[in-house]
């Protein structure tokens, strides 16, 4: 018990407290650190770079989480049926999840590459686009590329969670529905969705927390570019650490931490609620 508490205190709690403390200091390489009050935070509020990163992060989380939970649900519904090759499909679904995000970022960088990439190759070969699309050079293209890379990597996780939730729905409910002559759509709306709701809520929250913290895919795929169009809050904070401004970078990451903590509390509450209702213990 105590090694665990010691480990988490030294390597998780202490760094977070340190970061929050840093955010109230002027701490730039080569300058003497000094207490700075809330000046880092007031500077942030006037910083268009911060607001554009905040806007990108929220928009990214909104779009990618919805897409991946929708795709994950579709995959889970399919693989929950006794279809042929189900084992093969279930094994392959885990492959994107298991690949390091930095590696999948690089693969998508090649896919969206202007002259060598598969995206432009397919678009042009099928005649969907007359000229090559400059995916990573425009803000809209880069946004789509980042969302695609993230959805590819994380939809399988959603599928695995939702599949576990689906397989726990009591079969007897569907038998009763069959007696009542309910169609497939009615079974989905009146049985599957309500029964799946706790799992769905926890999966959504869990993925939202991870999406607002997004770093590796963006760092590798676009580097936050073009310009700062795909700079997430994590990438912004990291770039300040990289340039030696620890106080300002810490203020950005402290705000991100506050957002993640808020979502984490919602997450823990919904896990506890479902634990109390007896269907769930953990996500």
């Amino acid at each position, binding site marked *: 018990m105590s090694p665990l508490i010691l480990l988490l205190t030294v390597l998780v709690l202490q760094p977070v407290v340190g970061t929050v403390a840093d955010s109230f200091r002027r701490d730039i390489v080569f300058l003497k650190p000094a207490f700075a009050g809330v000046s880092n935070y007031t500077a942030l509020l006037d910083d268009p770079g911060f607001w554009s990163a905040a806007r990108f992060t929220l928009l990214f989380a909104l779009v990618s989480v919805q897409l991946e939970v929708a795709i994950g649900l579709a995959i889970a519904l*399919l693989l929950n049926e006794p279809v042929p090759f189900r084992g093969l499909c279930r094994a392959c679904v885990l492959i*994107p999840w298991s690949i390091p995000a930095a590696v999948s970022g690089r693969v998508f960088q090649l896919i969206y590459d202007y002259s060598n990439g598969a995206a432009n190759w397919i678009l042009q070969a099928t005649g969907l686009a007359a000229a090559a699309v400059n995916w990573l050079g425009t803000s809209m293209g880069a946004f789509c590329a980042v969302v695609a890379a993230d959805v590819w990597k994380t939809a399988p996780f959603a599928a695995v969670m939702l599949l576990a939730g689906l397989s726990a729905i009591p079969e007897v409910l569907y038998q009763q529905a069959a007696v009542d002559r309910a169609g497939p759509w009615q079974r989905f709306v009146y049985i599957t969705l309500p029964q799946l709701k706790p799992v769905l809520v926890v999966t959504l929250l869990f993925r939202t927390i991870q999406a607002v913290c997004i770093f*590796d895919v963006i760092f590798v795929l676009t580097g936050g570019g073009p310009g700062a169009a795909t700079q997430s809050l994590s990438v912004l904070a990291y770039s300040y650490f990289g340039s030696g401004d620890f106080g300002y970078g810490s203020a950005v990451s402290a705000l991100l931490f506050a957002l993640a903590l808020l979502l984490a509390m919602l997450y823990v509450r919904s896990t506890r609620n479902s634990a109390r209702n007896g269907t769930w213990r953990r996500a």
Partner: protein
Amino acid sequence: MNKRSVAIFASEASVLCFCLAPFLYMLATALSSTGAAYLSPRGALHPTFLPAFLPTLEHFRSILLSPTLHFPRYLLNSVGISLLAALFSVAVAAPAAYALTRMHVPGAQILMFVVLSLSMFPAVSLVSSLFRFMTRLGWINTWQALVLPYVAWSMPLALWTLVSYFQQIPMELDRAALVDGASRFQALRFILLPMAAPGVFSTGLLAFIFAFNEFLYALMLTTDSTARTMPVAIALFEGLHGEIPWGEIMAAAVVATAPVVLLTIVFQQRIVQGLTRGAVKE
């Protein structure tokens, strides 16, 4: 074939395509010769494309044999660090899970949920302080600078998974061992761990995969091939002459993903169980 089974096959095919296409594209690029121009539009539409596309190991040879790229070393770092992280996380989580399920720990449930919320902390909020901490210890660019944070990071998952496995083992078994004079440690070592072996293995496996795939800590806490891991090496790999060496990058990507993809396919059911264990009452 009726309409329904056609629809099922079509949807299965699209699921497989969605999951595998980028992975196979990576593999194909790694195996194609530079002359085949990475399956580029011009290359592919050219009539000589298919005959020209003969798999070659030249990219693998060039990244693995080059004395300046250090890829074998990065792979060793990745595997070594992840193995140590997996071993230590089981070693730390198992006694804690034992205490939480077998002894009356005050506030056990609150502790479990505090640990769970720790796993939601953004890595970027920890990394600058960890960087200073490791600098003070003189550990920057060493294996232990990554192993310890990885153990802490996988702890919530390891603890929750092990607790849910330990709960399934009847209390009478290890209580009988205690009555027979075994110490608590012996009860854990000789009764619980062997009984929960599949769970312990899943926990270690997940901790290994998480450590192997981690990026931000590895980026910030290492400086060169002494401790740098595969994902960071691949992210920072650029060509010498301005042109991006896609063939080499994808060959390195294949080398980096091979261990985790093989583990995932072989132990697929263990991983799914570990991820969803306790999520649904069985």
